């Protein structure tokens, strides 16, 4: 091997990257050539100087990196848990809010319908389709006009049954019963409703009319009148008797 060839191989030689045969050839040349041997020594001296310049890991870097790795796995959990908790709370708030709000809002719409219907029934002199104080007349009248058979309670002269009427509340035909307490007209609306179930009496008041409504045996009951609330509640109590 010539010096020229040796110099070409020398970097790969000191780097241990030569195939065995070439490595041995360069080694043999270096043993006999002071010039090339000196060049190899210079390369090794440079390496040694560079290795002396190796920078040690700064104090605390390893700890910081490990903390960052922990943080990368753990806080994600914290965030997830927080997000989860937030989502759970949001679901509860929305659900409760919906449950609270929806029936109220539905009730509010119905209350509006009931009020409108009541006022209309008084104004238009169209209070009754079937004017009768006999529930045996009123009850059969609804047959074929409704998809349900409304109860038609009959009480004494204090709560006189005036008759019945077909009306339209909450987007469906309903039975409207008309009662009279002294000079006060009372409209009672009855229809089957999934939301009704069995629900205690609730009171509302608007435009001088008292409204009571409750649910019983899957029927929604709405009572409206300009009668005072105490008496109207008494009437509601009577209506709820089996």
């Amino acid at each position, binding site marked *: 091997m010539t010096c020229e060839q040796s110099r070409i191989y020398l*970097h*790969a030689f000191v*780097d241990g*990257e030569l195939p065995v045969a070439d490595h041995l050839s360069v080694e043999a040349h270096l043993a006999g050539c002071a010039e090339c041997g*000196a060049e190899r*020594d*210079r*390369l090794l*001296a*440079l*390496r*040694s*100087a*560079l*290795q*002396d*310049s*190796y*920078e*040690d*890991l*700064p104090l605390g*870097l*390893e700890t*910081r*990196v*490990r903390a*960052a*790795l*922990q943080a*990368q*796995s*753990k806080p*994600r*959990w914290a965030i997830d*848990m927080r997000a989860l908790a937030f989502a759970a709370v949001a679901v509860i708030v929305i659900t409760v809010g919906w449950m609270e709000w929806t029936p109220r809002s539905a009730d509010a719409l119905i209350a509006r319908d009931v009020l409108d219907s009541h006022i209309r029934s008084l104004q238009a002199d169209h209070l009754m389709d079937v004017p009768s104080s006999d529930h045996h007349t009123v009850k059969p009248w609804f047959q074929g006009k409704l998809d349900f058979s409304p109860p038609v309670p009959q009480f004494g002269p204090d709560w006189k049954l005036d008759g019945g009427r077909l009306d339209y509340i909450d987007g469906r035909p309903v039975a409207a019963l008309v009662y009279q307490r002294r000079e006060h007209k009372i409209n009672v609306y009855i229809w089957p409703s999934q939301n009704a179930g069995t629900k205690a009496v609730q009171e509302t008041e608007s435009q001088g009319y008292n409204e009571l409504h409750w649910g019983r045996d899957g029927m929604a009951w709405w009572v409206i009148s300009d009668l005072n609330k105490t008496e109207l509640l008494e009437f509601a109590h009577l209506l709820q008797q089996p």
Partner: protein
Amino acid sequence: MVKPVDHLKAGKVAQFEALALPHFKSAYNLARWLTRNREDAEDVAQDALVRAFAAFDTFRGGDIKPWLLTIVRNTCMTWLKRNRTESLPIDDQIPPVDPAQGPEERLLASASRDQVRRALEQLPPEFREAIVLREMEELSYKEIAEVAGVPIGTVMSRLARGRDAMRRILLREEPA
């Protein structure tokens, strides 16, 4: 419900540390020479190691060192682009070695760490990375090619020219 995933995550950290922790010093050393600044090197190395952990799923086994240093190297190069510093072409800035000068190996052997540091820092980054990966980290040509993303021939050429340039810088720096 929470436990098993938490456990997996903790397992991933432990697994990563078992393989990568011994090479944290290499990660820092490479970052230190590529950024030429200790404070920046700490930030870049930490950033790179956290990135490596995030990408640990893509590690396909074998020696983790080249894989890890590739991420460090790429993080450094991104940092360098953002913090661009002037770097002259290697052959323009360094005068050739004067063959008449004294025994170079003695000079190299006696060169202070400071002289070596300055000489290395004067090299353009692609030469610096080849020198650091070979001389300090003792990576093979193949591994350096993998880390730097260049062919092996380029690695060999950069090493030869980089070493030559360092020697010239050190000789020039020797007080007359």
